[in-house]
């Protein structure tokens, strides 16, 4: 049976007239990599701040490891690692000192702390930069240092709030691999992002947020099954008649077909061999075609269908 690490029920947070989190409910289980996906301003960071008891909230309950989280829940805090959206390190301390300082807020034993710090430096691959000051690090390395400061004390629950913003692809991959590795080592991870590819690649369960509401939750596959569109087929054509487009629309599982800029875009709902059916039709009616693309639905499609706008349009 799944053990809940975080349980949020009916959470409401208002900023004067603005409802930042609107009756939000989730349960995050031990061993999850839980993704909170939503556009900027959807309430992800506010929810995280409420979980951490940094922000007061108007309604609802939050339980962490089965206990109500309060500002003075020091034993609970000891089990949590947080990587903030903004880099939070001391410019006047070196890479090693920064990690040691933040680890020292959680771990009193000096020997154990030294061991943890060394392991973390190896983990984030900052060994050759240990004596560097943060200002000398590139954006990607700085993000890795930010992560190291949050995870050095080996927490059971790690919360990463958009840790890959403004990071180059190589560093981003390293960060994502590192998070997966932390999860393999036993940590439960909450990962917030507006990059759907990251969330889809990394997370075992996902909640999609918009305007402070949890509009859908489940695994990536479960979320995709919630929408009508399950496949998008694009075919390069020089020309096609309205009658043919109508006939294609009438094919099984096809619910939309649009021709624009010499490309026929067909949206299909769940069903096998959709592509074969369409290509057969084109061949039978002597309609010459060029390249053919078939895309499975993304989380952006899920968001688009549920909210009427794309994640990136917000």
């Amino acid at each position, binding site marked *: 049976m799944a053990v809940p690490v975080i349980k949020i029920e009916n959470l409401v947070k208002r900023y004067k007239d603005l409802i930042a989190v609107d009756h939000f409910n989730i349960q995050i289980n031990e061993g999850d990599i839980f993704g909170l996906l939503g556009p900027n301003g959807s309430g992800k960071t506010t929810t995280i701040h409420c979980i951490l008891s940094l922000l007061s909230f108007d309604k609802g309950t939050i339980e962490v490891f089965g206990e109500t989280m309060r500002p003075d829940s020091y034993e609970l805090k000891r089990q*949590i690692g947080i990587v*903030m959206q903004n880099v939070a390190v001391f410019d*006047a301390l070196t890479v090693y000192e920064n990690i040691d300082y933040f680890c020292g807020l959680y771990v009193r034993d000096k020997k154990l702390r030294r061991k943890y710090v060394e392991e973390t430096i190896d983990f984030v691959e900052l060994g050759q930069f240990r004596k560097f000051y943060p200002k000398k690090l590139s954006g990607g390395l700085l993000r890795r240092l930010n992560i190291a400061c949050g995870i050095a004390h080996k927490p059971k629950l790690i919360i990463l709030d958009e840790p890959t913003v403004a990071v180059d692809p190589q560093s981003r991959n390293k960060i994502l691999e590192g998070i997966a590795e932390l999860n393999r080592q036993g940590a439960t991870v909450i990962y917030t992002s507006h990059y759907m590819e990251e969330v889809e690649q990394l997370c075992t369960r996902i909640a999609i947020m918009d305007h402070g509401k949890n509009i859908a939750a489940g695994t990536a596959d479960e979320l995709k099954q919630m929408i009508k569109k399950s496949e998008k087929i694009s075919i390069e054509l020089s020309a096609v008649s309205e009658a043919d487009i109508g006939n294609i629309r009438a094919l099984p599982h096809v619910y939309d077909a649009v021709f624009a800029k010499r490309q026929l875009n067909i949206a299909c709902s769940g069903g096998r061999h959709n592509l074969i059916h369409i290509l057969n039709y084109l061949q039978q009616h002597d309609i010459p075609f060029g390249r053919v693309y078939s895309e499975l639905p993304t989380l952006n499609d899920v968001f688009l269908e549920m909210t009427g706008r794309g994640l990136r349009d917000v």
Partner: protein
Amino acid sequence: MFWHEFVYEIRRLLRQKEELFWVLMFPVILGTLFYFAFGSINNTTENFHTIPVAVCRENGADNRAFTETLTALCEETCPPYFDVSETDFHTAKKMLQENKVRGIFRIGEEVTLLCASVEAENMNSTLAIEQSILEMFFQDYRASETAVTELIAENPAFAQKMPGLLETVSYGSPKKLTDGNLDNTVQYFYNLIAMACLFTSFAGAYIAMNNQANLSALGARKCISPCRKSVSVAAQFGSGILTQFVCLAVPVVYLVYVLGIKFGVGLPLLFLTVFAGCVTGVAFGFFVGCIGKVAEGTKVGILVSSSLFCCFLSGLMFGNMRNVVEKFCPFLNVINPAVRISDSFLTLNIYGVNGRYFGNLFALFLMAAVFLAAGCMMIRRKTYASI
């Protein structure tokens, strides 16, 4: 946890070049500039040279009163006011032309003074000043002589009381009321140190900002950690005071031993005053740092302007300012930490350790306690309405 915070805060503060500049380098630079600016004033006022004069007696004439006055000024003062050469008028005139003397006292029926023309070719500012001193002395003497002569003419009995009255008059042996440095310009150095003490407020402001989740990302990270805010603030406050005090001790030692500024007391009492100033400065910065959700730049601006304003009122830019404030709004002087710090130095210099000095220290520590308590009240809130 306390020591962990304490040690890392010291490391951090000692590497903050901008903050160190204001408490370490700025007083050294400004102190050096003050030294050279006020040094020339001291040279012209303190380096008094004995003025050479010639005395000519016409036909062996004598004027006992004048001769005794001249003798007193030559023998009872250090350095002597006048270097007297008794000679005949012809030789004296030659000496005057050759600038060997600044004036000639001719003693006949009356005493007269002959000086070189101010338009003479070889006249320079030093000669002119010495000549002015000579003329002023002679005018004073003539005025006194005339007054006494008239008094005796009106009341001959007064002549018998004169010697007794004159015994109480001394031309050249002022009685010292203090062993301190009476040079007025030293007050600028008091205010300079007071300003450096108030600049320690930057360190206090960063303590506040680094411990509040709604003011910095670092503050948020600290608030999420299991380290209690009270422990963190106490450790950082202690290390802040220690580092700022050590840094400020350097310019004080520089002023005393390198520039030779005389504060009138030894280093321990100077350090005690600077320590009290640092405690007040850091606490003031902590208080300002705790105020609301204001940008870091704005808070630094508030600290710089308020520190400079306090120092302006205590006389850093205009020496008499403190007296002006005392006349029109004395309460401002009571609550102005810069005034309390500079007055502590002044008291130590002139009167030594006394009640007024301890009163100043008490006022400084009281202000620090008020700032600290008010700051703690503001940040003890544990959850925020917005971040």
